[in-house]
């Protein structure tokens, strides 16, 4: 009997020890290291990073974009003493913040030191507001990156565009209000916004004052009369309602959507991540037309969202993280071999990096008045209301 009690007590003690190990340390150290890193040169950071690595640290970085894996390889090639110390882990967009929120500061082995994440509003809610990750931006790029993309640092922009199957000819999409017509029912493909944060963010952005105005203007241009309704709060809400009623959710991934529309019926239109065109087999690539490269669309011809880099509060290698972020923001990192810039649909916030000529794409600036841009602050404030409006429409 005594032995059993002793055993039980031992189990309890072990348990308590585990719990005790959970608290993190040196958070202020990370913040001050990051502040110090801002003004350092890459060479100085490399020295610091080598020290960190020598002390046993490794950089686990979590990302939702697969290009990051290649970027890490290139980074380690550029800084050979860090070879094997940068570990990429892919996470699912939907679970990004649940996972980060729970691993950072938990003392879990291989928890994230750095994260490349989408959805600025959630990043603020779950990470920055809670002090789980810190933003970092190097002084060296302060002049070439617009200030709004510095805190937190944006490492790339990604756009989703209206793209259609041209095998039945031009679909003649010139105004987004066309997509609310019954004729488009089941022919517009879009990933379920309740499962895809960037899609819901785009719809939320439409309800912003600026876009409410622009949607009303597009309405007037299309129907020839100013927008008015008792039923809807604004033109944007009406558009969202009728657009979602027409949407077909057959494809659960952007790659499938790109491939599926390319090999599917003529006249089908998708609003999906532009860069996924690279997944389409060459034989089918010609079946797809990007609406914007064909004609202007009244309203918008897609939307643009940001990928942010932030550093975990409990990282053991803040300088390595800083160096990696510097790398991603620079020419080498963003435009290196097989990295973001080699595909259409990725844009660097660093204005000194241009899109390669051979790609059928334009620079970030070209898109500035043609797409719906993410405003993390607006989404942060309005998320819940609009989400619920949209969620009930997806399920109906």
């Amino acid at each position, binding site marked *: *009997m005594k032995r*059993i009690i002793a055993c*039980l007590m031992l189990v309890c003690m072990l348990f308590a020890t585990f*719990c005790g*190990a*959970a608290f993190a340390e040196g958070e202020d150290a990370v913040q001050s290291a990051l502040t110090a890193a801002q003004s350092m040169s890459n060479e100085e950071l490399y020295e610091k990073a080598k020290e960190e690595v020598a002390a046993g640290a490794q950089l686990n970085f*979590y990302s939702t974009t*697969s*290009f990051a*894996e*290649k970027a890490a390889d290139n980074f380690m090639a550029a800084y050979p003493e860090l070879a094997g110390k940068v570990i990429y*882990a*892919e*996470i*699912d967009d939907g*679970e990004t913040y*649940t*996972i980060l*929120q*729970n*691993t950072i500061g*938990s*003392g*879990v082995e291989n*928890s994230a030191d750095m994260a490349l994440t989408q959805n600025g509003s959630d990043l603020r*809610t*779950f990470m920055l507001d*809670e002090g789980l990750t810190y933003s970092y931006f190097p002084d060296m790029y302060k002049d070439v990156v617009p200030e709004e993309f510095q805190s937190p640092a944006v490492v790339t922009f990604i756009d989703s565009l209206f793209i259609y199957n041209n095998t039945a000819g031009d679909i003649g999409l010139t105004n987004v209000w066309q997509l609310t017509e019954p004729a488009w029912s089941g022919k517009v*493909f879009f990933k*379920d916004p*309740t*499962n895809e*944060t960037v899609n*819901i963010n785009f719809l939320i952005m439409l309800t912003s004052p600026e876009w409410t105005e622009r949607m009303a203007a597009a309405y007037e241009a299309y129907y020839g009369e100013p927008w008015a309704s008792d039923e809807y709060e604004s033109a944007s809400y009406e558009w969202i309602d009728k657009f979602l009623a027409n949407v*077909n*959710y*057959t494809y*659960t991934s952007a*790659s*499938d*959507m*790109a*491939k*599926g529309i390319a090999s*599917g019926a003529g006249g*089908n239109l998708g609003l999906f991540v532009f860069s996924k065109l*690279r*997944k389409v*087999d060459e*034989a*089918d690539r010609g079946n797809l037309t990007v609406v914007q490269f064909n004609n202007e669309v009244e309203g918008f011809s897609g939307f643009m969202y940001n990928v942010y880099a932030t550093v975990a509060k409990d990282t053991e290698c803040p300088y390595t993280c800083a160096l990696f972020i510097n790398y991603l923001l620079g020419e080498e990192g963003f435009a290196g071999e*097989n990295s973001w810039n*080699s595909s259409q649909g990725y844009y660097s916030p660093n204005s000194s990096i241009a899109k390669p000529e051979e790609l059928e794409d334009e620079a970030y600036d070209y898109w500035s008045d043609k797409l719906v841009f993410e405003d993390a602050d607006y989404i942060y404030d309005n*998320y*819940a209301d609009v989400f619920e409006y949209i*969620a*009930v429409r*997806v*399920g*109906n």
Partner: protein
Amino acid sequence: MHEKKLSHRMKAFFSKPSNILLVIFLTVLFVLSVLPLLTMISNMFTVHIGTEKKLLRLPEGSFTWNHFQRLFPVSEWSVVNFWKPLGNSFVVAIGAGVLGILIGGTVAWFITRSNMKYKKFISAVFVFPYMMPAWTLALFWINVFKNSQVGGGNVGMLESMFGICMPEWFVYGLFPMVIVIALHYSPFAYLLIGGILKNMDATLEESATILKAGRFKIIRRITMPIVMPAILSTFLLIFSSGFSSYTVPVFLGSAVKTFTLSTKMRALINAGYQGQGYIIAFVSIALGCFILGLNQWVTGKRKSYTTVTGKSGQVSLVDLKKANTPLSLLLCAYVLFFAIAPLISFALESVIRQPGNYHLSNMTLHFWIGTEASAYETGMISGILLNPTMWKALGRQVLLALIVAMIVGTSGMLIGYSCVRQRGSRLSRWVESMAFFPYLMPAMAFGTIYLAVATSQGFKFLYGTFALLILVASIKFLPFASRSGINSMLQISPEIEEAAMVVGVPWWKRMVRIMFPIQKSSILSGYLLPVISVMREVALFTLLVPYARYLLTTMLFSFNETGYSQYGSAVTLLIVLIIILINTLTNKLTGASFDKGIGG
């Protein structure tokens, strides 16, 4: 005086190893399955960080009824997020349960009770769909039946070969969900019902024959009622699994905007409505308990189904006469289509570059052994067999499967031992039902519960760890092991152990040298089932892995979700082949097999 008596009684109580085991298991199960449930319940009443906090303007962790008020009273929100998905889940769960039992039960009857041909082949292959992750069957379904008239207008196999276009309800939505889930679980029905039919005393049916009951009357009045407990527990299983199936509805439902409770649960949790998500999880569990209660109420205690095993060797097989050949061929065609064809299609899909083009020129082994740096096009650096991430994920999955099997198999055996030795005592009943409880918890809900636990203060050290996966899988897969443990221990008479006790053999030695060897094959089967379950499980792990490529199945799911279909097919094939290999090897080496773990 009293105290002394009590201490004597305690001493007597704990002098039996089976009692010590029961107390330990009771404690462990309470901590690992009841406490998490309580944590989840408390989460149904609290405000979470993020959306809820913003929406309710209350501090994190404060008490609220809001989640219930939003989810239950009829409103546009609750209809879309709860009531309609609830209805769909019911349709899927009941439909799959009934269909799964019909398919599995029919095949079981033909195999055990008729003179059908090709029995060996059919029964060997019929269980394949159970070894594949369920959603890969859904993908197979879509690949075969998609056509130019539905969805995105992409041509599937059936249309490209025969020009046949199936209507939308056939390709997407509740109908295929029911079919796919039923197909996936019908082997289970087959093994459970077949086991009973095989062991059932044939004279029960023969005596009815002599009393002039017709064949169908015998099936209806004699066979069915006797097989009923197996049917009901199979139904319970398929119902819970169908109700909580997440992966199948994701692929088959979104095209026609058909959502089920589990897809909504995940969407709500991801959108920041954790409270409502947990309520949905709780509803699934409560339903499982309700059906279990119903099951026990229906079968009742009076009609004991323990039948004296008769001369079952003398079962006279029903002569199918002229129908034999057509029926046998039909069944062969069935297993070929649903068990072999998916494997062939996975193999094919994994070697073609451009989907839908099965020309030899379009084939490549790149997705298996390619080395070109084509991350640009395919998202992965190389073919899966050369990819270190894949090998690591595979290694983790196999390791997880083995560790879980060790834990679950051993616990199952010990639970079986102690419950059988103390049969009838309250303690043993508690342990038995608590070990069964995780069976009722849908995998997704179970993952959600542990997510809630691992993300609550004091337990964060668990989150994203391998240990957590071991823990969760061990609890989730315990019910079958404990059941097979109890069944196998029931077959050993206590005298056998007592004979060793008399000559002073210590307890552990009795277990290792006597109990285990006697029931070797059935105990090993108890170890094998968790291996297979872990090898193809995804819903349980998807919320708990630190990142998608951590395990092979979560990696596969993310491949399929993000459209790396060739990699996905390759990994699916790999998983199925590994499972078949493990099963065959174990069977050859030890005589144990996974169907024995279930059937019995």
